[in-house]
């Protein structure tokens, strides 16, 4: 039995309790401070000018009238900035466009002025002469020989991976296992189709915002709405040509992120304006600026072919994924490979080939977004499995159960599965939803509507990149936890507080969660990849354990006993087992350490996910992964069922009820886990039914909340049943794995499969708008 498992047997009851958010009172009272709520003495306000054109060369820029406007303190254009490219896997972007604009809305100029109105007025006085170029907006066209090239100097950018030959390609990934070319002969049934997925906007409720200020020594402090203070620090330093030691980033409360506030948003340009003016500068985007200038989910096309024998055994799959990366790469070199990696789904398919592209286009840049690539691939694969089941005459759940990965199986590309819970998820969601009864007998629908039920299986990862944590024992026996993790709303501040409280048997209010600040926090990768609870949680727990060991050492010396004879008592007391009177408050230990023996007590731990096994290049063809799939974390599994009604006249779809079974290892905070699942499902209900960024010749035509519809309360089902499977993961803190992303992987195909079940029409393109559903119903009728 591992040490972790032994700990798990006597876990403090705070683990698993639905304790309220530690920051609940400040959020409910309106006292929570978000970036735009910050005001600094002498602060200026900034605004950015976005390009009018999707693709154009900048011929000349005249800012003289803008500079002359009273109240304007700085006007910056691309040529005023250091020529430092920034980006994650390929450095292809500047904070302001320099020679060329590559999407409509791309920032070309920045103004800092005494107020926002003056800054915006100044923007209108900037004259830019453009030579318009043909915009490339179609991903397949972009890949064709002779296509207009978007980044002429692509091959000169600093890059961490091998660039494909096609000049508009950001990255190309190919995986292959078995012998997919000859395996088709063994198949009795083959289905083949093309699927289309939309560009989805994150629509975090708080638009991107940054306040930057430079001190007299040339060090810049940045308060910003970010998913990672260290990432913002790195990009800001890089763009300014400063060492990271000259940049401090602090995260106030964050109004949502979902991947859109990973890497950088508007931190670099705001810091550059602070440098240019010598005064604090605030830049808060309007919603329209955020929608046109910032990031989004990759839209794209997926071509998929799957074959099975007549008993329902999956034999072969061929898949080609082409994703629209937009004008700059951002996290594309991670997103399309992840799409490829999950295109097999949580099933055994012995012969499989997949290729995945991210392609430059003259549209806004695509980035990380909850599930990063997985929801796209899973929409195709789970839709196709239902069509396969129909042709085989099999129940969709049965087909999935028959092929679900089991403990002795390897995941695609040969990676070991830590806990194979796919079957358990499917069985749980099947039973809870009365799947068999509804599928066989149906449920009466309201007049004019048809009702259906659909399933999707899914897998994802939880992990990625290193984490550190410090736990300091304060003189009064309380502790301060500092791990640099940013809570973007998912609840990690509370989770980590619970973990430390459990490790030291403290009450929640005896643990101070320190705000992320690069001046004091351990280095920390960002909030992404469902990594906080699992990766950072490991560092936090082990730092807490470290403090406990130090407390035991001191207590053993004072009480003259072995550490093994000591125990923690709730509320900050260490005592001798079986001797109620032999007890010391933590304050006595802290005092001894501080004044007499050993120095202050600080527990610290650094942790990085280490795979059990490496990819086996003999087993499969593997190329073009910027980040090796074996390093991305442990697997998680889930299964979801949606029940919908489709209006026969309008094609409108309503999701009535939803069941989601997820293997979470252990829920540290049950209500927060449910909150993640409920929120992920409703966000992706929007992806399935209404959300789609639209461009006309490269110009976004719906950059407002009015025209881009996210689900409201009346659109979302109240009955969302979170069914938690808790099989402790041995490498995880108290067994807990991440759930923030996997819950967002399944809703689109589950809903599409429910639509198919309701009206017999397959919708291959999401969002399944009434128009598309009606069209699919018409095609289904024509085919009959």
């Amino acid at each position, binding site marked *: 039995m591992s040490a972790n498992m032994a700990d798990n047997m006597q876990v403090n009851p705070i683990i698993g309790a*639905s304790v*309220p*958010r530690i*920051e*609940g*009172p*400040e*959020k*409910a*009272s*309106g*006292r*929570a*401070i*978000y970036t*735009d*709520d910050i*005001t600094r003495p002498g602060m200026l306000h900034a605004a950015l000018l976005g390009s009018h054109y999707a693709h154009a060369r900048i011929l000349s820029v005249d800012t003289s009238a803008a500079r002359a406007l009273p109240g304007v303190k700085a006007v910056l254009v691309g040529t005023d900035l250091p020529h430092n490219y920034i980006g994650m896997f390929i450095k292809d972007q500047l904070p302001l466009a320099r020679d060329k604009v590559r999407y409509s809305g791309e920032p070309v100029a920045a103004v800092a002025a005494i107020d926002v109105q003056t800054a915006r007025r100044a923007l209108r006085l900037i004259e830019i002469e453009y030579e318009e170029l043909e915009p490339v907006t179609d991903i397949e066209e972009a890949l064709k020989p002779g296509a207009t090239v978007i980044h002429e100097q692509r091959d000169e950018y600093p890059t961490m991976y091998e660039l494909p030959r096609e000049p508009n390609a950001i990255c190309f990934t190919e995986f292959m296992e078995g012998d997919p070319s000859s395996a088709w002969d063994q198949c009795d049934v083959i289905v083949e189709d093309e699927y289309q997925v939309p560009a989805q906007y*994150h*629509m*975090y*409720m*708080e*638009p991107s915002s940054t306040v930057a200020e430079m001190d007299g020594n040339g060090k810049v402090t940045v308060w910003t709405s970010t998913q990672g203070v260290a990432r913002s620090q790195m990009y800001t330093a890089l763009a300014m040509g400063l060492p990271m030691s000259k940049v401090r980033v602090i995260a106030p*409360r*964050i*109004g*949502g992120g*979902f991947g859109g506030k990973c890497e950088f948003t508007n931190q670099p340009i705001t810091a550059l304006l602070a440098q240019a003016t010598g005064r604090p500068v605030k830049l808060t985007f*309007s*919603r329209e600026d955020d929608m046109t200038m910032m990031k989004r989910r990759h839209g794209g096309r997926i071509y998929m072919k799957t074959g099975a024998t007549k008993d329902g055994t999956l034999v072969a799959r061929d898949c080609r994924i082409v994703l629209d990366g937009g004008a700059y790469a951002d996290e594309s070199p991670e997103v399309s490979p992840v799409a490829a990696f999950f295109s097999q789904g949580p099933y055994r398919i012995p012969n499989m080939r997949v290729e995945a592209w991210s392609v430059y286009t003259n549209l806004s840049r695509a980035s990380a977004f909850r599930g990063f690539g997985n929801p796209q691939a899973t929409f195709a694969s789970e839709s196709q499995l239902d069509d396969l089941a129909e042709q085989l005459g099999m129940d969709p759940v049965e087909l999935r159960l028959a092929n679900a990965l089991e403990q002795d199986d390897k995941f695609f590309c040969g990676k070991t599965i830590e806990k194979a819970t796919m079957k358990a998820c499917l069985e749980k969601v099947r039973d809870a939803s009365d799947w068999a009864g509804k599928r066989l007998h149906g449920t009466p629908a309201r007049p004019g509507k048809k009702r259906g039920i659909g399933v999707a299986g899914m897998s994802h990862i939880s992990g990625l990149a290193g984490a550190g944590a410090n736990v300091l024992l304060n003189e009064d026996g309380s502790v301060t936890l500092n791990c640099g993790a940013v809570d*973007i*709303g*998912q*609840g990690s501040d509370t989770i980590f507080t619970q973990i430390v409280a459990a490790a030291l048997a403290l009450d929640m209010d005896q643990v101070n969660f320190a705000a992320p600040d690069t001046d004091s926090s351990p280095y920390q990768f960002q909030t992404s990849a469902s990594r906080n609870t699992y990766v950072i949680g490991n560092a936090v727990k082990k730092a807490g354990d470290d403090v406990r060991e130090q407390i035991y050492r001191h207590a053993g010396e004072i009480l003259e006993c072995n550490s093994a004879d000591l125990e923690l008592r709730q509320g900050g007391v260490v005592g001798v087992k079986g001797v109620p009177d032999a007890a010391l408050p933590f304050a006595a230990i802290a005092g001894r350490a501080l004044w007499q023996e050993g120095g202050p007590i600080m527990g610290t731990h650094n942790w990085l996910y280490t795979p059990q096994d490496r990819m086996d290049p003999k087993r499969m063809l593997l190329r073009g992964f910027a980040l090796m799939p074996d390093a991305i974390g442990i697997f998680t599994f889930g299964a979801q069922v949606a029940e919908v009604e489709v209006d026969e006249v309008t094609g409108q779809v309503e999701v009535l009820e939803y069941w989601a079974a997820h293997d979470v290892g252990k829920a540290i905070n049950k*209500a*927060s886990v*449910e*909150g993640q*699942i*409920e*929120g*992920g*499902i*409703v*966000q992706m209900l929007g992806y399935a039914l209404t959300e789609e960024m639209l461009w006309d010749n490269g110009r976004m035509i719906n950059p*407002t*909340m*009015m025209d881009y519809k*996210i689900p*409201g*309360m*009346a*659109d*979302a089902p*109240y009955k*969302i049943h979170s069914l938690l499977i808790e099989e402790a993961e041995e490498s995880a803190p108290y067994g807990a794995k991440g759930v923030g992303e996997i819950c967002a992987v399944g809703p689109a195909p589950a809903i599409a499969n429910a639509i198919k079940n309701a009206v017999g029409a397959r919708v291959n393109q999401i969002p399944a708008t009434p128009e598309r559903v009606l069209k699919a119903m018409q095609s289904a009728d024509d085919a009959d």
Partner: protein
Amino acid sequence: MTDKQAVTLSINGDCHDVLADPRRTLLQVLREQLSLTGTKCGCNNGVCGSCTVLIDDLPMRACLTLAVAATDREITTIEGLETGGELHPVQQAFIEYQGMQCGFCTPGMVIAAKALLDRNPDPTLDEIRDELSGNLCRCTGYVKIADAVLSLVDADRGQN
């Protein structure tokens, strides 16, 4: 340039004299001139509801209300719901039921929920979903927000 006007606003029981451009919205004046930053700006377009405040007890969009049009009215913002240092029961319910994640929509959502319960102390689930559908939340999926509001119905009426 438009001349500024003297405006007297009654907010959370206090009178504030401000000089404001007549084109300025109540949201701008609250946040930028009076430092009442609990009211949030999510769209500035009247869609998201993050800026919901009570004007004479009715939930209104502060981003669509001109400050000059709010004179002689009683304005209540999220900062005005506490009494004697105690959070309002709606605020407490949102905390207890985790009816919030990132918290950015929470002030507007709490105000809208309070307005609903003041007007209709016994709303059904469907009434809650209808009445709060003008306040968008991107994190929670709304279930726990509904639970928070339903808990107050239960507490007041002792029914499910």
